[in-house]
C-alpha cells in the first residue's frame, strides 16, 4: 500500500485568509484525489488532481475556491482560499496505488478550523 503524508496535520486560520495543504506519496501514482469531511459528516470528493493539467472538480466545487496543483506523480497541493467558518473540515488526499485496481489509500488528513 502507498504511504501518504499530509502537511499541516491541523491548523487554525482567520477568516479571509488562505491555507495550502500538501500531500506527499512515497511512490508514483496516477490517480490522486482530494476529499472534504465536514464535522460529523461523510467524505465528499472535491476534485481529481491531474498531473500536468488542470484538476477536475466535482459539482459544487470551483477552482477559484480550491486551486489544486499536481506538479509530479508523488505530490499535490490543495489551497483553501478566502476561508470562512464553513470551510472548517478535515481535508484528505487519496491515491489509487500499488497496482490494485480501484483500491484507494488515504492520507491522515488536515484538520482545518476557521475562526
Amino acid at each position: 500500500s502507498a504511504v501518504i503524508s499530509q502537511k499541516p496535520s491541523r491548523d487554525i486560520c482567520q477568516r479571509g485568509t488562505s491555507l495550502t495543504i500538501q500531500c506527499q506519496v512515497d511512490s508514483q501514482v496516477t490517480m490522486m484525489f482530494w476529499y472534504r469531511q465536514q464535522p460529523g459528516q461523510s467524505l465528499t470528493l472535491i476534485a481529481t488532481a491531474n498531473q500536468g493539467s488542470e484538476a477536475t472538480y466535482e459539482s459544487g466545487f470551483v477552482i477559484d475556491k480550491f486551486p489544486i496543483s499536481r506538479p509530479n506523480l508523488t505530490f499535490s497541493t490543495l489551497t483553501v482560499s478566502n476561508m470562512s467558518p464553513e470551510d472548517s473540515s478535515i481535508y484528505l488526499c487519496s491515491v489509487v496505488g500499488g497496482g490494485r485496481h480501484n483500491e484507494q489509500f488515504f492520507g491522515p488528513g488536515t484538520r482545518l478550523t476557521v475562526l
Partner: protein
Amino acid sequence: AQSVTQPDIHITVSEGASLELRCNYSYGATPYLFWYVQSPGQGLQLLLKYFSGDTLVQGIKGFEAEFKRSQSSFNLRKPSVHWSDAAEYFCAVVRGQGAQKLVFGQGTRLTINP
C-alpha cells in the same frame, strides 16, 4: 447515480459481542465495494474490498463482509469486538464503471461498552 446508505448512524455493542454494520448500495452493474474505518483523529484505513468472485470477503482486524446482490447489501461483520474497534465506519462504492471515484455512505459510529 450510485449511492450508498448506512442505515445506522450510531451503534453500541458490548466488548466481546458480535457486530454487524449495514450497508446498502444503488448501482446498476456489479459494484466495487469497500469498507473503511476512521479512528478518532485518524485518516481512513481500508478494512476490506469486494470486486468480484467469492461473495464473502475477509479483511484486516478480524472483519469480514458479505456481498448480497439480491439485497444490494454489503454488510460488515465481526464475531467478537474489542474496545479498540470503537471508530467510525464508512461503506463506499466506486462511482461509475472503470472509474476511480468513491461515493461514501454517511458512516456508522461504533461505541464499545466495557
